[in-house]
């Protein structure tokens, strides 16, 4: 009896193994099934509400899967390996290149020609068309805009004799030093140690770029050196906290760090956590030096490379690119549109915070589309800068290391 069980178990295992190795078959879903859409973060329920009219109009069911931001890489790897992906998916701009390199996204150049709603000309300039093409191919259409602006505590600035938010980075550094002089444990500005775009924004504002003429990453420029001066200077002045576990929302609400650069999500976090501060804080465009460029950090939408529902997927993209849809998404979920017509909408412009975001979006760029920004160039950049400011590493040697490590990375 026992022997038979063992045999059965063995047979079962062998069958299981055989099943595992059979992964080269085409297991795309039947073309009439519902559209599967991957939405990043926790907005899945809101997204279902958004697409209700689409389903009512077209009869196409939409099945929404919410993917947590920190599970994106894993889901992508699994989906690519198994060949079993969604039909439509949201892609954070910093991950766009990774997705495209994996061959996960359907090139859209031809489809866009037939669908005027998806024309790159309809969208904010920093994020559409060539700005987010990978290898010369369009693989995504813009979905939501996100940018970085300067948050400041007007009450604390005024108490310390500072009339308004700093307009230039030099002013910001001086104001931050003044505010840090309020006493022990008080700072003027906050630099998140995980924020790799910040030094890039500083470089843009010095009038430079981190990508050279030949499309390769190039940090060996006077503009980047000036950005490093600024970054390390803020630490040298004692204007920024040095602990990695500093909480930016708490730091802003308590007034420990009365200035910082962050995205619209922080405005919501502050309003939720400290409604009593209403009127004591505001946002403005990032400080300028040569320019006042900020980061364009939204999400795009793409179509999975071997979807069986290509037409329906493109219909959905068209629906989502309509100004009206994007405006309702702002209402439901608080994320800014990418369609120019929606950004210029009066209802949207009535909110003073949104006015600042829209103004900043007009002068915002996406990070260079290198392979794996977060784990590669971005991580190297942060390590180098933080070695200098936190560990007292030698600046020239550390930067020389950074140049050597990153110069072979290219956007092509």
């Amino acid at each position, binding site marked *: 009896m026992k*022997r038979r069980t*063992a*045999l059965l*178990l*063995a047979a079962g*295992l*062998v069958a299981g*193994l055989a099943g595992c190795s059979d992964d080269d078959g085409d297991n795309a879903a039947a073309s009439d099934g519902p559209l599967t859409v991957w939405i990043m973060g926790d907005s899945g329920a809101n997204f279902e509400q958004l697409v209700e009219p689409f389903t009512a109009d077209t009869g196409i069911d939409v099945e929404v899967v919410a993917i947590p931001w920190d599970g994106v*890489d*894993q889901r*992508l*790897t699994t989906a*690519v*390996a198994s*060949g079993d992906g969604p039909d439509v998916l949201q892609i954070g701009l910093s991950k766009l290149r*990774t997705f495209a*390199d*994996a*061959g*996960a996204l359907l090139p859209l150049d031809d489809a866009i020609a037939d669908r005027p709603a998806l024309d790159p000309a309809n969208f904010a300039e920093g994020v559409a068309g060539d700005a987010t093409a990978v290898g010369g191919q369009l693989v995504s259409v813009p979905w939501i805009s996100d940018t970085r602006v300067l948050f400041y505590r007007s009450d604390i600035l005024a108490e310390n004799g500072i009339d308004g938010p700093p307009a230039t980075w030099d002013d910001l550094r001086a104001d931050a030093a003044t505010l840090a002089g309020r006493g022990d*444990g008080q700072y003027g500005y906050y630099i998140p*140690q995980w924020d790799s775009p910040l030094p890039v924004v500083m470089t843009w504002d010095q009038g430079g770029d981190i990508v050279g003429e030949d499309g390769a990453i190039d940090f060996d420029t006077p503009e980047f050196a000036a950005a490093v001066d600024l970054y390390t200077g803020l630490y040298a002045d004692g204007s920024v906290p*040095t*602990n*990695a*576990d*500093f*909480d930016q929302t*708490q*730091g802003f609400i308590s007034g420990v760090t009365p200035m910082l650069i962050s995205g619209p999500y922080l405005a919501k976090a502050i309003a939720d956590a400290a409604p009593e501060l209403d009127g004591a804080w505001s946002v403005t465009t990032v400080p300028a030096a040569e320019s006042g460029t900020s980061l364009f950090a939204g999400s795009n939408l793409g179509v999975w490379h071997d979807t069986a529902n290509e037409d329906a997927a493109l219909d959905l993209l068209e629906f989502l690119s309509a100004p009206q849809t994007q405006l309702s998404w702002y209402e439901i979920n608080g994320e800014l549109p990418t369609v120019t017509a929606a950004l210029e909408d009066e209802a949207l412009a009535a909110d003073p915070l949104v006015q600042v975001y829209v103004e900043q979006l007009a002068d915002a760029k996406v990070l260079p589309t290198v392979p*794996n920004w*977060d*784990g*590669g160039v971005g991580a190297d950049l942060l*390590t180098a800068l*933080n*070695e200098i400011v*936190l*560990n007292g590493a030698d600046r020239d040697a550390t930067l020389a290391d950074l140049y050597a490590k990153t110069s072979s990375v290219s956007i092509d």
Partner: protein
Amino acid sequence: MGRGLTPYLFVTPAMLLLVTFGVLPILVAAVVSLTDMDISGLANRDNVGFIGLDNYQRLFDDPDFRDALLTTGFFVVLGVPSIVVLSLGVALLLDRGDGRFVRALRAFYFVPAVTGIVAISLVWGYLYNTQFGLFNYLLSLVGVEPVQWLSDPALAKFSVALVAIWRGTGLNLIIFLAALQGIPRVYLEAAALDGAGAWRTIRSITLPLLRFAIFFVTVTTMIAWLQFFDEPFVLTDGGPLGATTSASIFLYQEGFRNNQFGYASAGSLVLFVLIAVVTVVQLRLRRPDAQD
């Protein structure tokens, strides 16, 4: 069915499981480590190229991998003796009493071993927090400046190791307690009759008889610390500035964040060989004293 076949039939299920989940993955990793497999290779096998031993060459030239190995070595040197001494010491103390209180204590020491790592990271993250942490609050009561437990690269190594030691002690404690209870009472009584004191009894009777338990705990703890991953992953994610990046964290980042599957496979094979060598050396060292 002949007699000769029967034993094989009985070990078949175990062997199949071992081959499927033990040997096969290692062989696959060995093959992958000779290729430049990345995420595009995963999508389409045509994008995978055979590159010989290039990954290993790159690995030995990679200062980050060297640092990760050194960090792992630091954790092993700090963690293994701490766990063995601490769990043995506490086990010896707990073994002396059998009241309700002592039994409650035994359960208490075991709690960290059965608590989920995510809960542990949350609680310790708050204890260590520079701004609101309990440790810094207690220090502030005696006028000490806030300490950056997890942000200072030198200190973070110790902070992370402390959590792992705290978490690892409970299980080994139980192993020692079980071994202690297996020591025949006659030896202890004989020692008492000979007039041996408590300390002398522990040194000459208890510890030699615990030799196998100590060996077992040392080997398993050493293997666990060579693969040190959970605590730095949840507490610091390998930071600050790579100070807590153990070899396993490095491999995870290369493999699953940077999608360098070939490179990470090569690294995991190196780590596998390293652990195998360390374990074999330990087994060899043990053999002579088993014969006396």
